[in-house]
């Protein structure tokens, strides 16, 4: 689960590292929620913040066997984002469906 905007902290980038590592050992999916949806915005230019634009790494998730990236619809809408603004295709779910989604997984890594 990714809940924070990119670049302001390292949580998103290090969280993605954990996702990539986890995919080597188990079936994984990613849930972007809250400000975490900002991590997927396309055409990020992070040179001014001296941070790495790791959003491109989300494009490699498929190669790591992570087939589904979920985004919470309300979190996109509240931030005036649509799926076309995002760097990868996502599966959009309603906030009300998050609890049952989490129930489908043995372990949650929460960043």
């Amino acid at each position: 689960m990714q809940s924070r905007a990119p670049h302001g902290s390292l949580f998103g980038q290090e969280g993605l590292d954990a996702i990539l590592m986890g995919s080597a050992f188990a079936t994984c999916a990613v849930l972007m929620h809250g400000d975490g949806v900002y991590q997927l915005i396309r055409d990020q230019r992070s040179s001014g913040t001296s941070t790495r634009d790791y959003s491109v790494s989300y494009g490699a998730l498929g190669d790591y066997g992570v087939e589904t990236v979920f985004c919470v619809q309300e979190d996109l809408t509240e931030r005036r984002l649509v799926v076309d603004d995002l760097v990868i295709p996502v599966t959009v779910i309603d906030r009300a469906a998050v609890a049952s989604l989490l129930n489908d997984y043995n372990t949650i890594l929460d960043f």
Partner: protein
Amino acid sequence: MRFAITVHGGPYTSQSSHSALNFAKAVLHEGHDLYRVFFYHDGVYNGSEIMAPPQDEIDLYGEWRQLALDHELDLVVCIASALRRGVINPTEAERYEKSAANLGKPFTISGLGQLIDAALSADRLVTFRV
């Protein structure tokens, strides 16, 4: 029950480390197993043995160290998080030609695979976020 803990917060800056320490003590006190404590993000600073907090404040490194010695705990700091934050053991200090090392025993430095292994091996992985 077999627990694993991951700590995201740096010592003193947030309550994350304190809560994780208290939770670890409670887990052991109740007779459960604690498979591993994995320190990630700023949590890696918990392993710095050169912290010198005021005497009337909790000594977080010392508390983790004592708990680990008493219960043979596996305290692991993430190598990627630790290296970029300057928490290193003598081996890494030599590898990166640094003049000092600060990761205190019995903390060890290892990869993210240890977090995933803990998540898969424990009945519960409890994360102490910031």
